[in-house]
């Protein structure tokens, strides 16, 4: 290894050592595991009245969509602007065709992947719908849907999804998310406030607007990542 790299590695390890030392000398920084949740704001998230108020059995979902829903709106926007950026940089208005790769898939791969596609899609949809009851939610579910599309792209070198449809789905899902927030401003008093009944804890149809928002997020994430995959795997048609 070159001397410059060795020196940089030494500096890096020294840096990590100094950060670790600074954190252990910090009187207020709790050591691993010795945390009292009532010192933190999470104590109130786990309070029974708050849980009944929001109605979601999965407390992490309650935080992501209800308490800190504004952050989630921002996160959805980050993915939106990245997908937009990839389309701006790699896309073009000319007609596009699939990228020529060295690997040519065979018949078994092409047919077998279509069978798998349906199963992966179902699992993704299940995870999206049950976001307020089990771990998961819109983001992992949407990514699974996109990975199903990626499977089709990889297994068949002539497959192209309907990108126009994805773009419309993306725009509509995002706008609906903001419109639900604005409805909260009109019907209740605050932006993104829950205006549907919370229902019983543990039912599929509970937790107010949380399942609706997660479905929108799942569709948006799925279509955005599929758009990114398409942008990477296509090139301009050389006339």
């Amino acid at each position: 290894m070159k001397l410059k790299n060795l020196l940089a590695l030494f500096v890096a390890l020294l840096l990590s050592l100094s950060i670790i030392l600074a954190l252990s000398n910090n009187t207020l920084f709790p050591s691993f595991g010795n945390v009292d949740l009532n010192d933190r704001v999470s104590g109130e998230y786990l309070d029974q009245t708050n849980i009944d108020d929001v109605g979601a059995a999965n407390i992490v979902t309650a935080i992501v969509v209800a308490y800190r829903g504004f952050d989630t709106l921002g996160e959805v926007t980050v993915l939106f602007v990245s997908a937009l950026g990839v389309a701006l940089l790699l896309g073009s208005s000319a007609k596009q065709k699939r990228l020529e790769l060295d690997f040519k898939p065979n018949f078994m791969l092409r047919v077998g992947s279509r069978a798998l596609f349906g199963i992966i899609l179902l699992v993704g949809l299940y995870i999206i719908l049950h976001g307020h009851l089990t771990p998961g939610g819109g983001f992992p579910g949407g990514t699974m849907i996109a990975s199903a599309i990626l499977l089709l792209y990889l297994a068949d070198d002539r497959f192209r999804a309907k990108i126009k449809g994805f773009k419309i789905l993306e725009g509509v899902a995002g706008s609906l998310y903001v419109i639900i927030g604005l409805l909260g401003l009109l019907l209740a008093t605050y932006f993104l406030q829950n205006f549907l009944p919370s229902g019983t804890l543990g039912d599929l149809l509970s937790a107010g607007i949380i399942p609706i928002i997660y479905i929108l997020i799942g569709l948006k994430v799925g279509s955005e990542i599929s758009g990114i995959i398409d942008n990477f795997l296509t090139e301009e048609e050389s006339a």
Partner: protein
Amino acid sequence: MIQYAAIVLFVLGLYGLVINRNLIKMIVSLNVMEIGLNLFIISIGFVYDGVAPIITSTNTVGAVLFVDPLPQALVLTAIVIGVGTTALALAIAKGFYTRYNTYDLSKAEEDL
């Protein structure tokens, strides 16, 4: 301990960014750095003998100790942001390759 490992991962990712000049390797180092950071954030929320913060018929509020749900929500956001940045970086790298026919930053004809 896991917090120390996370901090070392974070710093190793930074080290990778500093010494590499190949675009793809820099993107990988960026991802390693972000993984280290996400691990650190999750480790902040751990409580000894705590279970996942999902209310079921056996795990109700008074009966069991829960781990902190807030860092998990923060990490969800941080992971998605990392994915977005990586996708954009890869698109820029592809544009760079189309233009200069190399992935090496120091060989580009721009005055960097």
